[in-house]
Each structure stands twice: as structure tokens, then as C-alpha cells.
């Protein structure tokens, strides 16, 4: 789960990670009020969406008067912002963050993420602030300084010094930086974050550090104990069908092909997509119905897949282990009564009682249900059906 910049900065403030002052606004009036409250004569109007690259997309603008704040807020609120991370359809901007201007002397990058190789969080810093870190990693990896932080000892001075000296900071600046980084580590650990990105981190004229931007993502498995983070969840930033699937314990991701897939298990679900692709088709979605594929979950699965108008055929691929295939077959028949399915459904049931299951499906006499014998056969039949063959 991800949160907005302004929400991440709220968490930062509680942990004394310095950020410029700012307020969130949902209307141009609120934006002007926010600017007046902040005072000064320069403000930044920033679109709040869950995607990077907002500046390049025209979602971050500088205002030099409150009337300009109003004008820019009116422009940005309600616009569909397209960045390299939103996809071509873009994202609707529903709120802006009004922030005081900052005295930028130099821009840096600072981030934290779980390093799967060392099985510890790492902190990464770079002098290439404002650039995408993946880009820096590709072009000049030597410009990224990384330290793995063993959670058993926590953030120590030497972690901070390694980063600070690596960035070429002066002795006077180092203490400020270490204080900043140490507080950031606490924000990460205390909230079960899986990612923090500050890009740019800025050094001000007086040698202090400020998080000019803030991006945070969290471990979904830990949300049950992160009530504050949970409250920050913005459902309008997520795919409605993915949210709905989640309510029923299904894991769904929409893709752009025309062969719908319903599979038990995440690995087999990905493998099924790959098989469809291998057989010359294009998967319309990823869908894991979980371990116990019953009539209700299968019916819900059909309903969700069929919300996508591109779907021309559905491939149901279930490997029955503990769950017996004959039960799943009956579940599928029942599901077709609960949800109207008007595209061909290719069903491959393998594992426990697979033959009985095939008999059940064949004897049901439902014209658009086609039984398949194995993974390849099912994928071929589904691809052919989607092409209208």
C-alpha cells in the first residue's frame, strides 16, 4: 500500500524528519487559505497522486502570489495527470499540497528499501537528486552509496558517516545529515514501511536538510497493526476491481489481453498467463482464487473477469490438491448459474478426481463449457476460442 506525499510528510514531522511546511487542499479556495496561513511570497502547488514524475507531467508548479496559487490550483485540481508511472490513461488529481518555497542549495536523493539479498533494510543516497534512481543505477551506479542496516543494532553513527562522506558533505553538514537519516530509519521501521523515497532531499543555504518530496510504501501483511497508516489509505488511487476482488480473498490484476484466466495459486496463475502467451494469445488478467476454489469464489471470479469488455474467452485452470476436482467442477457449474457467463469457458481440472470432474462437466451439457485435458491443451483451446476459431 502507498500513501500520498502530504501523508508521508505528516509521518516525517512526527519523527522530526524536517520537511518544508505545507497544507493539503481540495479546492482552489482552500489552496489560497493554505498559502495565506503559510505566509511568505513563494509557494509550490503540488498534485497529490500515487505516482512519480509529477513535475514533468505538469503537476508541480511555482506560484509567486496568492492569485497565482488560486490559478494553478484550479488548473491542477481535476486534471488527469499523465506521468511515466501512471500509464497512458493518467490519474485524476483530487487534491493539491501547498508548500512554502525552500532555499535550495543542492539536491540529493535519499531512500530506504528492503534489500532481499542481505535481508535487511538498506539506505541509499546519491548526489544525483531529482533524477530517477533506477536511471542513476543504470548509468552511473558508483554515484549511489548504500548501507545495509542490521535491525539488531539499528541505525548507528557509522551508517550515517558512510553516507555523508560518500555524498561529499562538509564536516559542519554531517551532523545535520546523520540526525536526518537516523530519524528516517525510525520512520521506516516503526511503520512497517517497505519503501521510502526522498527525491529530492535538499540542502538549504544554511546547511540543513529538508525532505522536499516524500514517497512511502508499506508491507500489506503488517497493516493490521498500523492503524495510522491504514487510515491514510486512499481507495480512489487503487483499481476498483482489484479492491473488490480483495474483499472476496481473490487476487486480481487487470492486463490488456482477451483471454481471461482463473487459477488457484499465484505461481500457477502467472504460469497460466505465460502459457497463453506461449500459445499465441494474450492474457486479460491475473487471478488467483486461492486454495479453496468453491462455487462462490469461482462465481465472483467470473463476475470480475467479465467486467473487462475485452475478454473473449475464460480459461479456468485449477490444480486440485486437497480440494477435489469433482467438487470444483460442481462449483463451476453452480457459479455459471450465479453469474451469467456468455463467453466460452475452457476448464482444465487436474489432480485429485480429475476424471470424475471431466465427466461432470461433459455431462452437464452446457454449450460454452469446454473441458481440457492439461495445461497446454487448455491454453490452446482458450486462445483459439478467444480468436473465434
Amino acid at each position, binding site marked *: 500500500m502507498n500513501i500520498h506525499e502530504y501523508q508521508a510528510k505528516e509521518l516525517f514531522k512526527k519523527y522530526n524528519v524536517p520537511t518544508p511546511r505545507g497544507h493539503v487542499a481540495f479546492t482552489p479556495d482552500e489552496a489560497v487559505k493554505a498559502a495565506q496561513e503559510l505566509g511568505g511570497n513563494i509557494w509550490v502547488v503540488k498534485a497529490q497522486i500515487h505516482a512519480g514524475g509529477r513535475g514533468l507531467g505538469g503537476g508541480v508548479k511555482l506560484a509567486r502570489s496568492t492569485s497565482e496559487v488560486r490559478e494553478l490550483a484550479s488548473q491542477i485540481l481535476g486534471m488527469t495527470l499523465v506521468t511515466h508511472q501512471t500509464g497512458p490513461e493518467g490519474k485524476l488529481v483530487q487534491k493539491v499540497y501547498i508548500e512554502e518555497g525552500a532555499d535550495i542549495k543542492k539536491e540529493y536523493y535519499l531512500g530506504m528499501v528492503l534489500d532481499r539479498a542481505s535481508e535487511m533494510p538498506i539506505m541509499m543516497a546519491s548526489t544525483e537528486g531529482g533524477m530517477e*534512481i533506477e536511471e542513476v543505477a543504470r548509468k552511473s551506479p558508483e554515484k549511489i552509496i548504500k548501507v545495509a542496516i542490521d535491525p539488531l543494532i539499528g541505525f548507528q553513527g557509522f551508517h550515517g558517516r558512510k553516507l555523508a562522506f560518500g555524498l561529499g558533505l562538509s564536516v559542519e553538514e554531517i551532523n545535520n545529515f546523520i540526525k536526518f537519516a537516523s530519524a528516517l530509519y525510525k520512520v521506516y521501521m516503526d511503520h512497517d514501511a517497505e519503501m521510502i523515497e526522498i527525491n529530492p532531499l535538499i540542502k538549504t543555504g544554511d546547511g540543513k536538510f529538508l525532505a522536499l518530496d516524500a514517497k512511502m510504501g508499506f508491507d500489506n501483511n503488517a497493516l493490521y497493526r498500523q492503524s495510522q497508516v491504514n487510515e491514510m489509505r486512499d481507495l480512489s488511487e487503487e483499481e476498483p476491481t482489484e479492491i473488490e476482488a480483495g474483499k472476496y480473498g481473490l487476487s486480481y490484476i487487470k492486463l490488456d489481453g482477451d483471454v481471461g484466466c482463473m487459477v488457484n495459486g*499465484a505461481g500457477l496463475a502467472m504460469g497460466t*498467463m505465460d502459457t497463453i502467451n506461449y500459445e499465441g494469445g494474450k492474457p486479460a488478467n491475473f487471478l488467483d482464487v486461492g486454495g479453496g476454489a468453491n462455487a462462490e469464489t469461482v462465481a465472483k471470479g467470473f463476475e470480475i473477469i467479465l467486467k473487462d469488455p475485452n475478454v473473449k474467452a475464460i480459461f479456468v485452470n485449477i490444480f486440485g490438491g486437497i480440494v477435489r476436482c469433482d467438487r470444483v467442477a460442481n462449483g463451476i457449474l453452480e457459479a455459471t448459474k450465479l453469474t451469467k457467463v456468455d463467453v466460452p469457458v475452457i476448464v482444465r481440472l487436474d489432480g*485429485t478426481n480429475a476424471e470424475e470432474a471431466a465427466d461432470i462437466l461433459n455431462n452437464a451439457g452446457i454449450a460454452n463449457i469446454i473441458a481440457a485435458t492439461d*495445461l497446454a491443451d487448455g491454453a490452446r483451446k482458450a486462445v483459439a476460442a478467444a480468436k473465434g476459431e
Partner: protein
Amino acid sequence: MSILVNKDTKVIVQGFTGKEGTFHAEQCMAYGTKIVGGVTPGKGGQEHLGQPVFNTVEEAVRATGATVSMIFVPPAFVSDAVMEAADAGIELAVIITEGAPVKDMMYAKAYAVKKNMMTIGPNCPGIITADECKIGIMPGFIFKKGNIGLISKSGTLTYESANQVVKEGFGITTAVGIGGDPIIGLSYKQLLPMFEADPETKAIVMIGEIGGDLEIQAAEFIKKHITKPVVAFIAGQTAPAGKRMGHAGAIISGGSGTAAEKMAALEAAGVKVVVSPADIGKAIAEVMGK
């Protein structure tokens, strides 16, 4: 022969009396696994499925001599359970539980390593040595005895591959589901040399997926140390970047962890990589010279 577990392995179950623990412990016992007891705090002294229940892992180990623990406790308590097993001298913990917070596993794994306890999982189907010992939730009947070792991040793809291997006339020595979370216990790199050393195992199937670089590490290891043929499939060739595909660890982030790079690394290491998971069985038949 086999790796890690066999017909003599003594197993306890943490979360023994819960719904999942009970159901799967029963299935494991029916398969032939020597389940010698279980742990449910507060229910010590009772009997469950004909076996003793203990309050602590330490008591269970002392009374039964168990060396392996199968863990079914809910996600919020899983790290505690793993660390308790490590503290009590368990040699291998098989963590079935799905949904454990990453931070918790970070601490639990570090402690397990310190205590020399191996772990499998979390969020995995477990481990099975065909016809001898099943510690996990996989359907046992698929795993006919034979000469193929199997390592997989995915549960149902493990069953799919084993089924194909059996249909081609081969069978399984041991199959290990290592799980698809960001932090897992035993991985390819630790399991491959065990299969290499096992005289019964003649070839190895390795199922990976997008995210992380364990498969790349495996490729480097195979190149240097593995002489037995390896067949591999990497799930998620068609997965979009930046989307988590069911498993917490199955995500292409910052352009790395793609199926393409893993497949290329494995191919360069001499592994027979199949593009379609439907070809795993055939590939085994090919490398086994049938």
C-alpha cells in the same frame, strides 16, 4: 535417499490444535509422517490426534526428541513461534503460515541463522520426501517416488511440475516449496548442493518467479557446482512491472527481477529453461535421456 527429511524424521506441529494445524497434521500422519506431538500454549497435557500436546517447544523437544517443527500459527505470531523453535534446538522449521509481516521475518530469520536452525517458507506448501514424509499442505499422492528433485517458489506449480514428471514416467525424491515472500529460509542455493549430494536424485526441477535475485544467485551456483541436469521455469514472463503478482515477493521493481533476466542467467549456466510451464515434464524426459 532424499534430502532433509525421511521416514524417521520426528516432527512436532506448532499451532497443533488449530483448524489448519489439525487438518494438515492429520493428512501428514496419514501419509506416514512421524508426527510425535504438538505445541499449543495453554493446552499442555492434553492429547490431540493421539499425540501429546505441550505448552512450549522446549518441553515438546525434550519429551519427544523431535528435530523438525511444522508451523501453522497465525501471521501475527509466526516470528515468535519460529524463534521459540530455534531457541529450543529444533533443526528445521517448516513455516506454512501465509501473511507474516516482512519485518517480523527479518528478525526471526536472523535469529534462526544464529541458532543454526534451517527454515523453509513462510507462505509455502512445505517439504515432501516421496512415500516417506510429508511436512506441509501438498496433496501427497501426486509425488510418486523417483529420481527428480524439485525446488519451487510456488505451491500449485510444484504440484503441476510433479504431476508432469510422474506422467512422463519419472518420480520425485524430495520436493521443497520455498515460498514467494521477500524473506525466505532455505533457497535454491542451499538446496541445490543437497540434491547434488543425494545419490538418488538424478536431475532437478527448479521453479522460480519474478522478483528478487535468488534465481540469478542459483544460476551462478549451478555454473560452478552442479553437475546434474537442471530444468527451470520462471513464472511471470507476461507480468507487468511494478505490480505484485499474488506473492509478496513477486514484483518487478525498478526494472529488475524480470523473468527474462533470470531465464537468460539460467540458460547461460547450462540449465534447460522452458518457456511454457506445460513443457516441464517433457524437458525432464529429455535431460534424462528418454
